[in-house]
């Protein structure tokens, strides 16, 4: 709606107000984080380094700018939500951050490491759950998780116990030795969480983690993430178009619409910025974008359809 207001919002360092306490989780979580630095050479190990920093991130598919001058600053130990309707550019932003799309230097930094200069070092720090439900249906649940444990160099002596504990944490112990092809959508999503978490990532990136899941499965996914965060101080970067989830689980939120960030703040700040009591994030979004979330944009619901297709195939 009003670009000048938006820029003022995104350029200012985002306010971070004691995020962990709001969840009722371990307040010392963020403090514990530098301790995890031990295995990262390129990381200076200072608590001041943002978990994720995007500076003027641009990505264009031919003529179409899917991500346009996006600035993001994610403090370690927080849950950061990127909100927007389908086609806003969230997934493209995530693909740029996760090194799947080639980006120029200085646009994306993960714990201070430039994604363009050293993508392998960035990948060592990431856990990634894509939007699409994706588990290798030709392997059992346990083998799916063990593969990721191996790819992240979990020593063979500790691998079995660690894989079992990751499966247990997402409630899949009983189904662990079934083929992943027999899993339901909610189970696949939890399996993917176990895959992403088994390497103890410092930054967990979730792209629409609860899309297509029923309310119980949605709550369950967030519960697991909350538990792991409380125990490890892991940073979480999540995209969603469910406003209620963002309100409930995110410390800081950026609203994305038509490739640009329109506003950034804590859920409380964003709601307060409207000046009308009882405002919801839905209202905030409408205020900053002049748009509703249900409106299908240029990209339509292509991504959602492809998710459904996969779910059907995996079944």
């Amino acid at each position, binding site marked *: 709606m009003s670009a000048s207001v938006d820029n003022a919002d995104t350029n200012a360092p985002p306010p971070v107000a004691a995020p962990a306490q709001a969840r009722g989780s371990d307040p010392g979580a963020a403090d514990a984080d530098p301790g*995890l630095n*031990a*295995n990262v*050479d390129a990381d200076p190990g200072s608590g001041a380094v943002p978990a994720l920093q995007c500076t003027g991130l641009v990505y264009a598919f031919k003529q179409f700018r899917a991500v346009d001058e996006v600035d993001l600053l994610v403090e370690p130990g927080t849950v950061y939500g990127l909100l927007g309707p389908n086609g806003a550019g969230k997934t493209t932003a995530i*693909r740029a951050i*996760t*090194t*799947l*799309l080639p980006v120029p230097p200085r646009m994306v930094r993960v714990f201070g490491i430039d994604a363009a200069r050293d993508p*392998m070092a960035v*990948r*060592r720090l*990431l856990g*990634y759950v*894509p939007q*699409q*439900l*994706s*588990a*290798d*249906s*030709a*392997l*059992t649940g346990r*083998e799916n998780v063990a*593969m*990721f444990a*191996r*790819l*992240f*160099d*979990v*020593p063979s002596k500790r691998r079995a*116990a*660690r*894989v*079992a*504990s*990751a499966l*247990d*944490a997402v*409630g899949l112990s009983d189904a662990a030795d079934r*083929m992943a092809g027999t899993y339901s959508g909610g189970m696949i999503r939890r399996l*993917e969480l176990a*895959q992403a*978490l*088994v*390497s*103890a990532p410092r930054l967990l990136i979730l792209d629409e983690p609860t899309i297509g899941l029923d309310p119980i499965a949605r709550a369950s996914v967030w519960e697991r993430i909350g*538990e*792991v965060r*409380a*125990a*490890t101080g892991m940073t979480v970067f999540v995209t969603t178009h469910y406003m209620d989830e963002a309100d409930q689980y995110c410390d800081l939120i950026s609203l994305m619409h038509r490739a640009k960030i329109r506003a950034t703040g804590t859920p409380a700040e964003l709601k307060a910025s409207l000046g009308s009591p009882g405002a919801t994030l839905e209202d905030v979004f409408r205020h900053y974008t002049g748009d509703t979330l249900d409106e299908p944009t240029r990209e339509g619901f292509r991504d959602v359809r492809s998710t459904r297709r*996969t779910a059907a*195939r*995996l079944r």
Partner: protein
Amino acid sequence: MSVAPVEQRLGFAEPVALRTGWRVLPSRIFTLCVVELQKIRHDRTEIYTRAIQPVLWLAVYGETFTRIRAIPTGKVPYLDYLAPGIIAQSAMFIAIFYGIQIIWERDAGVLTKLLVTPTPRAALITGKAFAAGVKALIQALVVLVFAAILGVGMTANPLKLLGVAVLVVLGSGFFSCLSMSIAGIVLSRDRLMGIGQAITMPLFFSSTALYPISVMPGWLQPITRVNPLTYEVDGLRSLLIGTGGHLPLDFAVLFGATVLSITAASALLPRLAR
């Protein structure tokens, strides 16, 4: 959830020291080979059904053409001449559709996730090439046993059989990487399916799998000489039945072609995730 407090259950939360430098590639290749073996173990139907075709080639085509003596193979019976060709051909037929598998994994989101792990692209490709090689080895074993039953006189020298195994793995490695390279260019399963169908028969018929180069028309011979399948067949023939014989050249060509195709496929792989 009610079993133990969170801190005790989260045994996976401890950070891991990740490999860096030269040890990453061999370690990841090993991992992906293990994963491919797990997949083969879970679904063996493909291995059984794939064995039907080469057996028919030997039992029907081979026996018939041995009887009519239409193809000049010197002192060697035609069936003996054919058996190594069928090993190479059946391995290629499996490998040439590996690109479809990698596109399927892309569509299923599995490949995307693997590309975000600290795994060199070459390891992902080599894992697939290895799987193609393992399947081809099982095929080769079936053909060898069946050929022996039909009375084909083959070597029992373990060293030569090891050489056969290496050639078969290199050959299917090359063709699977060729297929995955094409996948990285055309990016869609249907197009790759068409290209796969279009090139398998020309590759097969322009090689020396069925007949010697001397009976081919002049225009075909140069093509035969650049077809890696020719070198695989020649190597297998010279190891198994002791004819032909440019062994060092055969190994060198196949090794070079495999390395080249792994490099090409690794470079093209990220295109699938864009």
